[in-house]
C-alpha cells in the first residue's frame, strides 16, 4: 500500500533532524510502525533510563492520532501496566497539525511532569499522592531496573 507523502516526509525529517533524547525508527517491512526510544528527562526520576515504546500510524493518520505504548516497564501515574499513556493530545486533543515529533516530545515532557490528578494507573497515582518521596524513589528503582541503557 502506498504511503502518504506526509508520513514519508515526517520520517525523513525525523531521520535528518532527530530530536535530542528521542529516536524513532520505522520498521523496514511496515513503515507505519516505529521503534521509539525516549531518554528520561534530567532531574526527573526517569533520568538515566532509556524507555522503549512502539508507535503505529493508523490508516487515517494524521486525521486520527498515532497509537503509542510504552514497552519498557515504567512507574508513572499516567502510564498503566500495559504501557498505555494518558495524554490528552493522544486522544481528544489530537490535531492533524501535530506530528510524531511533537507527540514524542509531549511524552518526554510527561515523564518530567507526572500528573497524579489525572491518573491512568490508579495505584501509582495513589502512592504518588500519599507519599510522593517514596513514589519517586520507586520510579527511580524501576528506571534503573527496567530502563537501563543497553
Amino acid at each position, binding site marked *: *500500500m*502506498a504511503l502518504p*507523502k*506526509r508520513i514519508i516526509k515526517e520520517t525523513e525529517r525525523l531521520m535528518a533532524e532527530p530530536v535530542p533524547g528521542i529516536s524513532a525508527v520505522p520498521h523496514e517491512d511496515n513503515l507505519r510502525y516505529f521503534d521509539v526510544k525516549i531518554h528520561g528527562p534530567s532531574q526527573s526520576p526517569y533520568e538515566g533510563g532509556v524507555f522503549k515504546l512502539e508507535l503505529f500510524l493508523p*490508516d*487515517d493518520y494524521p*486525521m486520527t492520532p498515532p497509537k503509542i505504548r510504552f514497552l519498557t516497564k515504567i512507574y508513572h501515574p499516567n502510564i498503566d501496566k500495559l504501557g498505555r499513556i494518558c495524554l490528552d493530545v493522544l486522544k481528544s486533543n489530537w*490535531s*492533524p*497539525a501535530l506530528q510524531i515529533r511533537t507527540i514524542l516530545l509531549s511524552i518526554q515532557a510527561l515523564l518530567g511532569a507526572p500528573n497524579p490528578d489525572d491518573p491512568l494507573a490508579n495505584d501509582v497515582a495513589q502512592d504518588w499522592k500519599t507519599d510522593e518521596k517514596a513514589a519517586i524513589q520507586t520510579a527511580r528503582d524501576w528506571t534503573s531496573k527496567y530502563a537501563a541503557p543497553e
Partner: protein
Amino acid sequence: MNLLESVGFSLIDSEELSYDELLASSRFMSGDEARVTSQDIVGLDAHEDARTLVRLIQCSKCSLPFRIPITLPCGHSHCRDCLPQPHHRENISYPNTPDRRHGVVCPVQTCQREHPVGECDVDVTLSKIMEAITDVTAEYQPASEDTPMLLEEIKHYPRADSVLPEKEEDSMETPEPRSQVLNGGRLAATLRFAQMGFLDFEAEVGYQTLSKEGDDYRPLGERILTQFRESVSKELDCQVCYNLMYDPVTTPCGHTFCRKCLVRVLDHSSHCPICRRTLPIPPSLDRQPSNQRLKSLLVGLCPDLVAARAEAVEQEERGTIGELDVPLFVCTLGFPSMPTFLHIFEPRYRLMIRRALEGNRTFGMLMYNRAGQPQGDLGNTHFLQYGTMLRILNVQMLPDGRSLIECIGTTRFKVLRWSQLDGYIVGSVERIEDVSLAEEERIEAEETSVAAPALNAPPTPDNISIDPSVLVNRLSTRRLLIHGVEFIEKMRANSAPWLHQRILDAYGQPPDDPALFPYWFACVLPIADEEKYLLLSTTSVRERLKIVVNWIRRIEGQRWYAGSSCTVL
C-alpha cells in the same frame, strides 16, 4: 546611451488566475504522445513579469506590499489598516458571540458584504510570506548597489474601485505618474518602488536602464526570484498533508490548508488543527472561497509544482490504489436493482462517499463476515467476498457533515484482492454474471427432464414434503417463479407484517423479471442476511429461484403464517 525601455507584462486580473485554467491547458495536451509534463509549465519571469510578480503581494487598497494581511471570508486579502472601521452589527441575536457583534463592510467591490470581525483574523501564511520576502530583500540589498534603473509608473485608466462616486471630480485630477531611479534589477526595483508607495496597484511600470553598457541586470532579478521562490514555498506547505497547498482555503482564524485537507479535518472535528478554535464554517466547505492571493502566488511562483499536485490529487481522489480501484464499504447486504439506504457518519466513509460523488458515484457494498468463514483465496477476511456495486442516486447532506444516501444496486462482484486506503477498503473485483440464456435453458432442460411429468404440477405443501429438494430441482424455472409470486400473494392476503405498505414503498412491487424477483424477495423477506447472501454468488436465474423456493418451503414447513403472530424466522 543605450535606451532600453519596455512595459512590464500586464496581468491585471492576476487575482483571478485559477488552477482550472492552468489544468485545462495541461489536460488539453495530455491525451497524445506530446504529453506536457509539469516541468514544461513556466512560472512568471523575474525580468519580464517583474510588475506582475510585485502585484501578487500588493494590497489592492493601499497599493503597498501587504502590511499585516487579513484574508476575508470572501477570499480576498487586504492590509489590516486598509479595512474600514468595524461597526456594530444590527438586528443579530444568534450566535451573538463577542467576536461577531462587530463587522466590517468588505472593501472588495464585487463583495461588499458585512464580514463579522471574528472572521477577519490575520492571514498567518500570507504574513509569513511577507516576512520571508522582507528577509530575502534585506539580504540581497548590498549585492545590488550601483545597478541603476529608472522606473516610471504608467497609469492606463483611473482605478475603478478607488473612489466613491461623489468624489469623481477629485479623482479626475490623477496625481502625476511617479518615477524613481532604483537598484537591483527589475524585480527588486519594482518591489522597492511599491514599498515607497509610488506604484498604484493597477498601474504598469516602464523600465529604462541607466547602465552605460545597456545592462538590463536580468540575472539579478532571476537570482532574487529564486530566493523568493525558495523561502516563500516553505510557507506554502499545508500543515496537514505536508504538500504544497492545493486550492488553499483560509479559516476565519487565519490558518490555511488545502481545501481537501480541511474538509477531511472537519470530518473528524470542528476545530482548527493549528489553534483549535472552533471553525464556524459548514463542513463541506462548498461555499468557502479559496484564498485568492495564495492561489495566485502559487500559480505565479510555481505552476509546475501546482500542476504536479493537481495530478496527484486527482489520482488520490479517485480513492483507489492502482488496480485496487473499487472503494468497498463493509456494512450491509445490497442486491442488484434494489435500493439501499445508508446513513454515513464515520469519517472514513464520509471521505469515501465524497470521493465517490466526485467520481463515478459507485462503490462496492460488502457484508461483515460475522461467522469468520474463510473467504476463498482471500483467507479469513472481516468481510464476505461477494458483494454488490451500489450507485448513489440521492444524497441528503446533514449540516454536521453526516449524510443520508439512497443507492441502487447495479452489478454483483467478487473481491479478488484488497487493501486499505485512508481507513476504508479498496479492492480489485471480478464481476459476477449469469450464464448465457442458452446455458440457462440447457440447465433447466437437464434438471427437469429427469422429472416425471406429474411432478411438474403445482406443488402443495404435502407433495413438497415428500422429497422436497429433489422436487424443487425438477420444477421448471417458470414454475419456480410462479411459486414465489404466489407465495407473496398468499402472504399479502394474510397481511404478513413484513409486506407492510411501508416496505413496498421502499422496494416497490415484485418485479416481473424472473432474474430480479429473487433479489426483491430477499429484500422483503424477514430471514437472516447470511441466508440472503447466497443469492450473490449465483450464476443462473434458475439457481436463484430455487433458493427462493427453498426458503418458502422452509417457511411453509414451519407454518408460521397460519395464525401465528410470530414474525421472526
